[in-house]
């Protein structure tokens, strides 16, 4: 690997600021996993098809395999590690995935959680059909879709019942210093 081409970036991941040097060809998914040790973000296809690498970047879900790390300079990133609360209690989506058996091998799960988190922010009371559409950019090789839809449905109910739901919003957490 040539090291002469490094760029300095500062990126805020799950509320914590990191300054590091990266090769421009390094994908954001690799920066998260290899440079920052945040291996929750999974890499499946590396060409945008599977959705396993989905993270939030400046309040929008993105494929971290289709963004270079250098492009995340000054950005705010939320990965699956940032979903649970500081006291380690799970995010309602994580609870719902556990409750409804929304994961089998769990490889696709981080991508689904981030995707669903954004989806429920935009559409807090979705129909099952809308949930299907909302998660259509994520593939589960264990084909656990039925239970994933159940889990997102349950999380929507939990979030809307939860009076504190504001504090469970992904973007709010990602913004915290």
């Amino acid at each position, binding site marked *: 690997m*040539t090291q002469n*081409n490094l*760029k300095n970036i500062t990126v805020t991941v799950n509320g914590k600021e990191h300054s590091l040097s990266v*090769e*421009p*060809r*390094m*994908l954001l998914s*690799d920066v998260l996993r290899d440079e920052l040790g945040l291996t929750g973000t999974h890499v499946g296809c*590396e*060409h*945008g098809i599977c*959705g396993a690498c*989905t993270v939030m*970047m400046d309040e*929008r*879900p*993105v*494929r971290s*395999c*289709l*963004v*270079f790390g*250098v*492009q995340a300079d000054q950005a705010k990133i939320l990965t699956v590690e940032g979903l649970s609360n500081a006291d380690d209690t799970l995010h309602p989506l994580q609870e719902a995935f556990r409750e409804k058996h929304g994961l089998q091998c769990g490889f696709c799960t981080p991508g689904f959680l981030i*995707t669903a988190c*954004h*989806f429920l922010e935009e559409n807090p009371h979705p129909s099952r059909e809308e949930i*299907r*559409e*909302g998660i*259509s*950019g994520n593939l589960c090789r264990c084909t656990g879709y039925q239970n994933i839809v159940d889990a997102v449905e349950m999380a929507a109910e939990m979030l809307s019942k939860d009076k504190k739901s504001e504090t469970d919003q992904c973007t709010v957490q990602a913004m915290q210093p």
Partner: protein
Amino acid sequence: MKPAVFEYHCPSTLEEALQLLDEYGYDAKIMSGGQSLIPMMNMRLARPKTLIDINHIKELNYIRVTDSDIQIGGLTRHYQLQQSKEIEQICPLITEGVKLIGHDQIRSRGTLGGSVVHADPTAELPVILSTLGATVTLASTEGSRTVTTDEFFMTFLTTTIEMNEMLVSVQIPRPSANTGFAIDEFTLRKGDFAIVLAAASVTLDEQGRVKSAVLGLGGVDGVPVILDEVTAGLIGYIPDRNLIAECCNKIGELVDPEPDIHASGEYRRDLCITYAARVLELAAERAIKQ
């Protein structure tokens, strides 16, 4: 697999970007949303020596509506088009069509300029722009020029853009009153690229007769196909299902799509007829309601 080594530039003005493009010539590649380019680089199908990342050129990200047209900057992202209330009101074909592009995660990054320059014949935006009679503005250090979509799209993934040029904006004539739009596509799964894609615009006169109509198809040739031969049969008539079906039957003789692993040429041709009739009917219905 990882992209090959490249030199990275991240200009913040258009002028800077154009100068870099001039300087590096054939070695350079513009990167906009990266949603088509990065997959190709990840698989090393593309190995640009120099990457000019235009994501920080704020002057290329805008939606402006004037009395005569809608002007959209090349860096405007799919989700921004999807969320624009102004566009939804004036030209809902764009809103409806953009929702069909990939998934949320792709629309977060993908841009109008990237989609148009990438020129995939099954992509939504090229067909939409062709149906709307849009023009495309290209700039280089030598100046800028504006071309019609017909002059722009050449064949599969190929346009008439020059090596030192960048797409800076797209202009769409403001649709006239009493115009209805529709777009629909056949995909194997939600969010996939279309096998066949059809878009229509129908304008009625005071008596409810068709004043003008445009039918655009994607996935049947290397470029978006506009079939005036089909819509000519509607002009002057009150549109109804039978008339539309009759006109659309002509499509069988007008298109000759290539087969691929997803669909035979025959099947694509049938899909064209079905989807063309569907969008023309819906567009006419929406024009009536206005």
